[in-house]
């Protein structure tokens, strides 16, 4: 990006993209022709892009064949299966959408309203009753009938949320060996108020260890902010800025950063910082909390995790004895559900086939597990009804195909195989919590940012200027919070709040009818 304006870079990308797509279009038609000759029956072709958090295999053809064998037989759809790493995914999908390349089914990774406001995704409400009956049924059964509200704007359903453990209560994740060494019983940690005593004990016994890890991996998604959201029932109302939220159920849109909930949370972190429980440079460090803990320099951090088996998974991952304790409940607002949503591109010519495929993706055990684990016998071995393991002498990095670390994202978690050793009851617990966790009364409201785009872009900037230092306790809240608030006002926070309040009122009125 050096020496090049961001704008001109994008422009050239668009131009190059459209040139490339012209070529791509040709090859598509030619392959279709050859397909037509062998099977007269109409087989629709769709492109399906899945993010994988594991190694991307070089050769997908075998798995693609296996997927196609299922889909052509069951719904007459051929799938062009693409797999991208998490860092590439959004970029690759965006580029395809912007340049008009073929891209039918993809997931949002947190950008739901963005895609909708730019009309990049197709409305599905007319196709679902016919081609997505089972899909709707399974979502109703597993989550409750209102889940599709979170992807509905102006009466159009734009996406299908993934069916997995969506409640992510805030956990304190800590090194159990260090806790024992400090002479503290795990049961003494029940809420956030119990933490300072624990940190103090750890600091005294192990002076070289940082008691509480850096939390500023991403300013708007820190453990602290999520803890405040869950503990005080804060609904961010679908944008990530935090200047227009509702706290509790009074229906009043306020600036979160002016609230007592925020001030108290920041003060707590400031007290921890002053007591020396955090690193001096928490606000700017690029080392993640996980790295701190796995290197043995850190004792704990906050994180949102579903289920109770997190400790086991993390222990295996970081090579330390990790345990977790839930310290705040989760609170369902709209974005908590629609942040991982399967969508169909608005430029797709095969929307019907795409919905048929989505339907299968949520309901067909064979398809789901082929996508996740590959081919039985080669990539995985069956252990029992719900569990699989790697073939002899292989692990996640040496099997020919594996995408299983994207699990949860593909369709319904209850139909997915789990790796050997993971307690099946945890999957059931996750499903139960999807139904039981408290929901915001504004669950289903989606903010249309179109009117205040300018203000939001300016506010984003102010937030990234002040929030990291505040949530890490490294600045004095007494003097910085007022500066933060006045900078937000300058950037147009009031306009965002007004616009949101208006839309929320209209939405509430529509709900009563």
């Amino acid at each position, binding site marked *: *990006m*050096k*020496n*090049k*304006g*961001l*704008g*001109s*870079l*994008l*422009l*050239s990308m*668009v*131009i190059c993209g459209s040139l490339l797509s012209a070529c791509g279009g040709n090859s598509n038609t030619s392959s279709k022709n050859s397909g037509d000759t062998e099977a007269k029956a109409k087989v629709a072709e769709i492109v399906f892009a899945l993010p994988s958090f594991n190694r991307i295999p070089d050769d997908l053809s075998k798995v693609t064949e296996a997927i196609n064998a299922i889909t052509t037989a069951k719904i007459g759809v051929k799938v062009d299966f693409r797999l991208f790493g998490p860092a590439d995914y959004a970029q690759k999908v*965006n580029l395809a*959408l*912007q340049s008009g390349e073929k891209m039918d089914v993809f997931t949002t990774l947190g*950008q739901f309203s*963005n895609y909708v406001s*730019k*009309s*990049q995704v197709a409305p599905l409400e007319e196709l679902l009753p016919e081609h997505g009956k089972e899909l709707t049924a399974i979502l109703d059964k597993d989550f409750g009938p209102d889940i599709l509200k979170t992807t509905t704007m102006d009466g159009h359903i734009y996406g299908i949320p993934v069916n997995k453990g969506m409640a992510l209560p805030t956990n304190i994740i800590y090194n159990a060996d260090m806790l024992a060494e400090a002479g503290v019983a795990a049961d003494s940690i029940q809420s956030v108020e119990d933490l300072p005593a624990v940190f103090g004990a750890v600091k005294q016994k192990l002076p070289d260890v940082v008691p509480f890890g850096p939390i500023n991996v991403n*300013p708007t998604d820190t453990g602290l902010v999520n803890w405040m959201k869950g503990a005080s029932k804060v609904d961010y109302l679908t944008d*990530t800025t935090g200047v227009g939220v509702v706290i509790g159920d009074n229906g009043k849109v306020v600036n979160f950063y002016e609230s007592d909930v925020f001030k108290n949370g920041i003060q707590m972190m400031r007290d921890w910082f002053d007591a020396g429980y955090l*690193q*001096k*440079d928490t*606000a*700017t460090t*690029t080392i993640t909390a996980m790295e701190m803990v796995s290197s043995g320099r850190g004792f704990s951090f906050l994180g949102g995790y579903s289920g109770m088996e997190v400790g086991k998974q993390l222990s295996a991952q970081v090579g330390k004895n990790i345990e977790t304790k839930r310290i705040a409940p989760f609170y369902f607002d709209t974005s908590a559900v629609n942040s991982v949503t399967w969508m169909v591109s*608005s*430029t797709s010519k095969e929307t019907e086939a795409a919905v048929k495929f989505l339907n299968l993706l949520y309901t067909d055990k064979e398809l789901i597990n082929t996508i996740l684990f590959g081919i039985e016998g080669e990539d995985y071995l069956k252990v029992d009804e719900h569990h699989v393991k790697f073939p002899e002498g292989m692990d996640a990095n040496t099997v020919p195909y594996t995408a299983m670390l994207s699990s949860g994202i593909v369709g319904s978690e209850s139909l997915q195989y789990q790796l050997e050793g993971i307690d099946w009851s945890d999957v059931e617990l996750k499903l139960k919590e999807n139904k039981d966790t408290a929901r915001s009364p504004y669950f289903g409201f989606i903010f249309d*940012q179109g009117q205040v*785009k*300018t*203000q*939001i*872009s*300016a506010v*984003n*900037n*102010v937030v*990234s*200027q*002040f*929030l*990291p*230092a505040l949530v890490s306790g*490294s*600045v004095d809240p007494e003097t910085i919070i007022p500066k933060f608030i006045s*900078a937000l006002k*300058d*950037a*147009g926070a009031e306009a965002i709040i007004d616009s949101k309040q208006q839309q929320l009122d209209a939405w509430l009125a529509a709900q009563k009818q």
Partner: protein
Amino acid sequence: MTARRKSPSKPLKKTLPLLILAGPGLLYFLINSYFPMFGVFIAFKDVNYAKGIFGSDWIGFKNFTFLFQTSDAWIMTRNTLLYNLAFIALGTVVSIIIAILMSELLNKLYSKLFMTGLILPNLISMIVLSLLVFAFLNADSGFVNHSILRPLGLPEINWYSEAKYWPYLLVLIQIWKTAGYGSIVYFASIAGIDKSIYESAKIDGAGKLKQIRMITLPLLKPTIIVLVLMSMGRIFNSDFGLFYQVPMNSGALYSTTQTIDTYVYRALMQLNDIGMSAAAGLYQSLVGFALVLTVNAIVKKVNPENALF
């Protein structure tokens, strides 16, 4: 470059080899600089993918407003301009000094060795450089705090949350990185100066300093003007790596590290709006273009010989 000869139009036969030589370069500019220019209209559109880029609504200058939305608008414009002016002024001076010193170095081997050493920083990527800087300035274990300030009993400085040090740091880093590379052109120009001028000066009794002042610098003037003019065009752009990566995107430093490029990046990270990005790019390019024209006009007025066009 100093002597311009006016020649009558040559027949194609003579210029054809030159045209072929220029071909790949021209093609490059056509593809990378001229084709994308058609995309400029995106800056005036509310891009809607269902309608397509060409079918989207025109919205006039609305995409540009976010650049001037906050009080930060003044800060980022000031930073961009002042940093670039400092880079141009100091960079030029340091580059020329390096070039002159190198050319005075008679031993070929040493001169080659130093030159290589001076160019090396230019090859380091900004990401790596930011980590190098971090190793120096990190609050807990950084070299400056850990090995200089602490042993001397001086108060430690939390570099990444104190904005006031960064104007000096950034200028220093930028000069360190680019001055060696920048000196190459000057070095080449000096090498091209007729040696007999120096010899006659020597005979007339001029010392080294006088030679530099009376011969080298005046003869370098056209080169300096051309290079400064070219960098003027980029005065509203900034090296994203230097202003975003090197300060580790620390919010506390925005008052002295925020430039137009980093502002645009931060503001549009979540929105992902190509209309607004295009607007920002267009704004920067137009201001740069205007500046080049202005400075060139001034140069033309003062000394028509040295103007770029």
